[in-house]
């Protein structure tokens, strides 16, 4: 980690850390969330936050949580779980993430952790890295959801995906003709991706029925082929349809969309 300083958390820098996480995640949360997740967590110690600093600026963050895992009624083992991990966008792809990961786990082991846990989206870069470095996947029972306002769930899901997928964000920011409609909500995907509104009169509108949500709700957890398959299924079953006044723009968007989906 040349020229960078690796250190633990110092009291008083909470706002800086949260600003940094918001920069990296698009929207991560507010200081009270960080406070509750870390300093208020049982047995918290300053070393549970690993910071990478470059000339006084935070460029990396990894949270650790230590807790006992009861393997049976009689016995338990100290474990470490990886919390929020973030690398400054300027330093992504430089291997800093891996160094932060390895160093944090070595520190955890030295502090008595017998097992390390992490949560990912299946197929994500961190998932692949962990599987390569000796982690195994553990089966969990399902989580159940009741969706009360499908439109808002769809919008939040899209924002979440856009904030975390740079290629998707770039492609959508250029797709100024593209709109997504569900119920009475109509979203400009370029605007969601942070671009300025531009009204050229050309519209490609993807209209999704509310009953399509069960098919889309696991979109984030799927691999690329499952994602493409689910979108094709929506179109074939009529749960989604496309309306446009600009066939040329539709063809362009279709090609760009497939490329982006394949790269996610």
């Amino acid at each position, binding site marked *: 980690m040349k020229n960078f300083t690796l250190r633990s958390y110092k009291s008083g820098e909470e706002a800086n850390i949260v600003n940094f996480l918001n920069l990296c995640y698009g929207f991560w*949360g507010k200081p009270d969330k960080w406070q*509750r997740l870390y300093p*208020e967590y*049982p*047995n918290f110690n300053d070393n549970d936050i690993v910071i990478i600093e470059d000339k006084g600026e935070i460029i990396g963050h990894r949270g650790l949580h230590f*807790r*006992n*895992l*009861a*393997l*049976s*009624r009689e*016995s*338990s*083992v*100290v474990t*470490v*779980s990886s*919390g929020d991990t973030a690398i400054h966008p300027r330093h992504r792809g430089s291997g800093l993430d891996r160094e932060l990961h390895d160093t944090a*786990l070595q520190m955890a*082991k030295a502090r*008595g*952790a*017998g*097992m*390390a*846990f*992490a*949560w*990912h*989206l*299946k197929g994500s870069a961190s*998932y692949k890295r*962990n599987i390569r*470095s*000796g*982690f*195994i*996947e*553990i*089966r*969990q*029972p*399902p*989580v*159940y*959801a*009741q*969706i*009360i306002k499908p439109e*808002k*769930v769809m*919008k*939040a899901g899209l*924002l*979440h995906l856009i904030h975390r997928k740079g290629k998707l964000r770039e492609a959508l920011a250029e797709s100024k003709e593209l709109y997504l409609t569900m119920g009475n909500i109509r979203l400009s995907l370029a605007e969601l991706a942070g671009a300025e509104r531009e009204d050229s009169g050309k519209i490609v509108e993807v209209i999704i029925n509310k009953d399509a*949500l069960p098919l889309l*709700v*696991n979109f984030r*957890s799927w691999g690329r082929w499952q994602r493409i398959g689910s979108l094709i299924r929506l179109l074939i079953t009529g749960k989604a349809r496309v309306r446009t006044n600009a066939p040329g723009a539709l063809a362009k968007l279709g090609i760009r969309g497939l490329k982006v989906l394949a790269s996610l």
Partner: protein
Amino acid sequence: MPRSELVIREYNKADLPAILKLYERCPAETPRFARDKDFVSYFINKASAEGNVFVAVKNGKVVGVAMVSITVEEELTQGSIIELQAQDTQTLPGLVKTAVDYCTQRDVDMILIAPPFDTRKVFKNWLMLQTGVMTVRLEAPLPFLKALLDTPRIRNSFAGRSIVFQVDKEIIEVKITSKGIETIQRDTLVKGAINVALPSRVLLQIVCGKLSPLKALLTLKLRTRLTAISLVLKLFETARLPQPWFIPLADGL
């Protein structure tokens, strides 16, 4: 009101000892993160700050608890039943209904729950979600082996045995008696002892039921001497951890 009727009400501080007893009375059937006083208080405080906590009481005894958190992220108001602990499946529907009603009254956009039992009937009208994937790695074999093997079943079945595990580069001798397990870090394998060599990943795969010990043996991922095969296979079968691991939303980070 008959005394045996189930009453669901808001939590108050005096309920904490009874909730801790509920966790003691109903230990998880699968590996589970700590539910000691520190953690239960932390989850109650978190839920109280973000939502509410409800207890189910029957015959004056706390028989269930539901902790509800309401968060707003990316314009989405989400109600999550982050912890749901009940003495039996009959207590569950009432607790879930109270928690759901609470969320609905607060105009949430969606409600999430990771229920503790196989409760498909209670959630038949809910969407089943594929959540993120949980991955695990063994960092230190010694404390893991101690925790894994220190159970009455292992102590009763293998008392008097001494087994030397070589996990990655670490060598650990495990001495099993009827009263407990002793684990000793060694520099070299012990001559004449039952030596078992395997990578940490294979050890985890076996105890988590992802790889049968016999298959590991046949594919040379697990090595031991010929005369010890039957004992080693039996040991791993006995030590296998139940699946799937139940991780409540409260433990998600």
